[in-house]
């Protein structure tokens, strides 16, 4: 019973996390120039570096999020090669999201330590400044992604 609850919790969290990253990625993809400006405000990358990040990063979020969400809704249990490939892609997507959120936690901490008062450019439901709320949100995402990855 407990394992059934864990399986369904894991599936729901994967679906939720995947959906959130798809949403956040789409927001950024649809406003690439504003997202480039948001990256530049962190004063860590050159203009070209910020533009390339703004072009590629949203797709990492969309594709990794989509793989995670699809993996969560598809049935499991088969021992076929296709299933093994699907599982590896799901784990690969999760690994990318863990690295991405961990990197962003570090970035937020550095920005807060530098005292920059800038919009976080997170692409979630509303615009917020870099600060404790954005950090808490990102740490929560990291905790969920890390739990899902560790659970396997």
């Amino acid at each position, binding site marked *: 019973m407990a394992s059934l609850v864990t399986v369904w919790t894991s599936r729901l969290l994967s679906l939720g996390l995947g959906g959130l990253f798809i949403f956040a990625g789409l927001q950024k993809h649809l406003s690439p120039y504003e997202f480039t400006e948001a990256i530049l405000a962190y004063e860590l990358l050159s203009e070209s570096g910020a533009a390339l990040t703004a*072009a590629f990063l*949203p*797709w*990492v979020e*969309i*594709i990794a999020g989509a793989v995670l969400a699809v993996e969560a809704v598809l049935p499991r249990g088969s021992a076929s090669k296709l299933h093994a490939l699907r599982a590896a*892609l799901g784990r*690969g*997507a999760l690994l990318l999201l863990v690295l991405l959120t961990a990197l962003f936690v570090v970035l937020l901490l550095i920005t807060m330590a530098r005292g920059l008062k800038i919009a976080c450019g997170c692409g979630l439901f509303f615009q917020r400044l870099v600060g404790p709320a954005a950090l808490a949100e990102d740490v929560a995402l990291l905790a969920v992604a890390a739990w899902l990855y560790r659970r396997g």
Partner: protein
Amino acid sequence: MQAESQGRTSARPFRQEVAAGLVLLIISVLFGLVFQWPLVAAALRGEVGPLLTAKRAERRAAQFEGIPTLDLAETYRLWQERQALFVDARPASEYDELHVAGAVNLPPDAWDRLASPPLPADKGHPILVYCSQESCDDALKLARRLREAGYTRVMAYLGGFREWDEAGYPVDIVR
């Protein structure tokens, strides 16, 4: 021997996961190249700055149509004449640290929380709004809000507090 074999089998899935992650990363880069080519091309040519300026102007013209904007020299002249109310649209914490001398603070999202916003009763009084820097939209958002509230002579200074401060023009703190 058995431990070595177990180590090999546990390392294999991790290598597969890393490989899968790299494949997803490569696909993401390809999608980025296809869907954001103008941005990528500008980055490769080192022309991101002018592209951002042009896109920002284009977006603002559509989003904040009809709001007159002033440059640094015009803003300073207006400040010297002391005819207009200067309104700082930045968060209160930033305003408290330093602001254009004589300016009042009214962040766009704080308007609804204030019982009496620091605005003139005369709706024809000239008002100049600014925020932190060229890339922020808060000055224009507040200017639009002021126009909707009936103020007829609202202008926005887009260089923002950073440009004003860097030019060495008068600033003040909250005491």
